[in-house]
């Protein structure tokens, strides 16, 4: 079905601006409208799987106008973003009752989703920057939504680092425009294939790696994440950790490196180094944490390291001219891990929100024995923890296995060893979570804790079912060919982007 691509951006944007117009008594109507918007996005994303289209805005042809591009990678990420945002919106109908100004929260949430969809669909470098800023500024405001001491401090830290990253990205865009004379990704790709990289373009690429690396929280630039993700309300932590750092950071970096700038050996090694550093540092720092959400935040850093490692391995293998099948496998591992992590990390943050709303604390030393009192939360947390730690029938195992096989095939045995080691670390940290939060003795203060109700329960059950079904995505061949293979092909045949989009 031919879904007009701007609908992905227009639907959340229009609903976000309709919500403040409704009268104060219409809070239920506002919540219903916002939920309808996210469900509509899920339907649109599912309908556009498997198509590859270019949409020219305003009827102006490339390169005069701005175009939106839907290919395999975009549709995969649109599915992830819309699924997680539908679940988070459903969760927040009940969870945000603790805060005031709920319609403003819903507007900002929908603006963030509109910005992310715009980044994923954009075919033009400056358009990518504009939507990146829309999503980022909405997320800065959402992190500090509660306006308590810690949330404001975390929001300020996040905002300063995020703004510096955005300025770096704008500087990179300016350098790219100055050196190639065009802003359209297909035209830039063609120009770089023709003339090669000069000093200005190399500097622009390094600025992009720093800027998008900071948005993706890779290790030298991760300082904002351990403060921002715990302080945000739980559905926003789920969105930030689950989709924002990937859509704004990893996706944009992959799109620019594979499709626009072209692969090269130094870039591959830089990405592998950043990925390994993130995996190891995130893993080790997470084990010592006693705050539930802070542990999950450090674990996010570690898992994004896996994704960047897979992508970087693909870059290196393509650049050295090795077997294309090895590079495809590495990129498949990275992308599948990206989608997996969106689902189970957001489920983990939603369960932590459910625990926090029921008990009022996030410190694991004060929790315990909640297994009988909150059975659904406990089941959801166990499924997600087993998945992220890599226990066999769950999807996390398959994505890590693919990455290990890809590393061994390319004869990087030490990388495979590090992947396995960090997986063991991840298992340790999630056993810690299970032991201190759900098993053990119930403290006196938590005797009357009860299970969460209503929409929070529905959201967690939805994500648990999705988490269990994700294994089918890689095991069932028809699903893999329909959803994952086009995404991998877009990146592996990165040089064909200009031909497919603009026919150059």
């Amino acid at each position, binding site marked *: 079905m031919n879904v*007009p691509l701007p609908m992905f951006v227009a639907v959340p944007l*229009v609903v976000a*601006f309709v919500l403040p117009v409704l009268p104060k008594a219409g809070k239920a109507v506002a919540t219903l409208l916002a939920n309808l918007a996210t469900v509509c996005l899920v339907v649109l994303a599912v309908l556009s799987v498997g198509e590859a289209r270019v949409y020219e805005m305003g009827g102006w042809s490339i390169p005069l106008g701005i175009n939106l591009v839907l290919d395999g990678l975009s549709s995969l990420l649109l599915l992830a973003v819309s699924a997680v945002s539908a679940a988070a919106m459903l969760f927040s109908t009940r969870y945000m009752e603790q805060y005031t100004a709920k319609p403003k929260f819903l507007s900002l949430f929908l603006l963030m989703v509109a910005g992310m969809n715009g980044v994923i669909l954009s075919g033009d470098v400056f358009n990518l920057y504009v939507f990146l800023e829309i999503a980022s500024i909405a997320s800065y405001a959402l992190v500090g939504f509660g306006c308590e001491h810690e949330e404001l401090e975390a929001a300020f830290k996040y905002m300063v680092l995020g703004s510096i990253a955005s300025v770096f990205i704008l500087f990179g865009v300016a350098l790219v425009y100055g050196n190639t004379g065009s802003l359209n990704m297909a035209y830039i790709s063609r120009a770089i294939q023709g003339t090669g990289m000069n000093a200005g373009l190399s500097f622009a690429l390094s600025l992009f790696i720093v800027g998008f690396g900071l948005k993706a929280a890779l290790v030298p630039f991760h300082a904002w994440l351990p403060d921002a993700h715990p302080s945000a309300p739980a559905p926003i932590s789920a969105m930030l950790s689950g989709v924002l750092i990937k859509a704004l950071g990893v996706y944009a970096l992959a799109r620019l490196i594979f499709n626009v700038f072209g692969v090269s050996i130094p870039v591959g090694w830089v990405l592998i180094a950043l990925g390994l550093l993130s995996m190891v540092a995130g893993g080790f720092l997470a084990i010592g944490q006693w705050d539930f959400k802070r542990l999950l935040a450090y674990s996010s850093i570690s898992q994004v390291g896996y994704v960047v490692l897979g992508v970087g391995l693909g870059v290196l293998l393509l650049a050295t001219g090795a077997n294309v099948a090895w590079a495809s496998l590495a990129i498949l591992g990275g992308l599948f891990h990206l989608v997996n992590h969106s689902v189970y990390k957001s489920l983990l943050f939603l369960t932590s929100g459910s625990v926090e709303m029921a008990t009022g604390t996030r410190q694991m030393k004060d929790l315990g024995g909640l297994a009988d009192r909150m059975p659904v939360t406990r089941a959801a947390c166990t499924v997600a923890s087993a998945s992220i730690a890599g226990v066999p029938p769950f999807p996390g195992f398959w994505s890590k296995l693919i990455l290990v096989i890809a590393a061994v095939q390319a004869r990087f045995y030490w990388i495979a060893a590090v992947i396995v080691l960090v997986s063991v670390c991840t298992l340790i940290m999630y056993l810690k979570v299970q032991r201190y939060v759900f098993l053990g003795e119930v403290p006196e203060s938590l005797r009357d804790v009860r299970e969460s109700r209503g929409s929070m329960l529905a959201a967690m059950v939805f994500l648990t079912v999705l988490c269990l079904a994700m294994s089918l995505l890689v095991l069932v061949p028809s699903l893999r060919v329909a959803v994952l293979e086009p995404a991998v092909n877009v990146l592996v045949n990165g040089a064909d982007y200009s031909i497919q989009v603009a026919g150059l």
Partner: protein
Amino acid sequence: MKGMTVIVKTVSSWVKVLIFLFGIYIILFGHLTPGGGFAGGVILASSYVLLMLAFGREFVEDNLPLPVASRLDCLGALLFALIAVLGLALGGTFFVNFLYQKYLVGEPFKLVSGGTIPLSNLAIGLKVGASLFLVIFALSVFRCDSEKPGSPRLSDPPAEKKE
């Protein structure tokens, strides 16, 4: 906030009309001369800022209450989205200039020309003007207590400022 002296109040009550008119001029002629929606909107908001400085915050709040400004803001954004969606419905592509293509071509270099671009300018000018007014109004809620310097409060009612 109390406001300023009689001279400032008198002069600003004459000048505010000129500033507002200038803002509307910049918005309307945005497709012919430099400026357009954003610059015109900023000038509209700055006329209200002048009023806020000269007469005090309460006067402006009675003049343009916050819920009205918020609704004008959303109205501007929805108008812009309406123009884009009408382009999809009437012209076939999102955001296409459907007035220029079919209905109202106009002559170049006159006020009625350029299709939907002047309408987009109007929508943006309305939105930016209302938004900036709301932002500056919201930022001016915080004030310092003049007896204990360095300790701000978030509160109304405003204390009497010692001259």
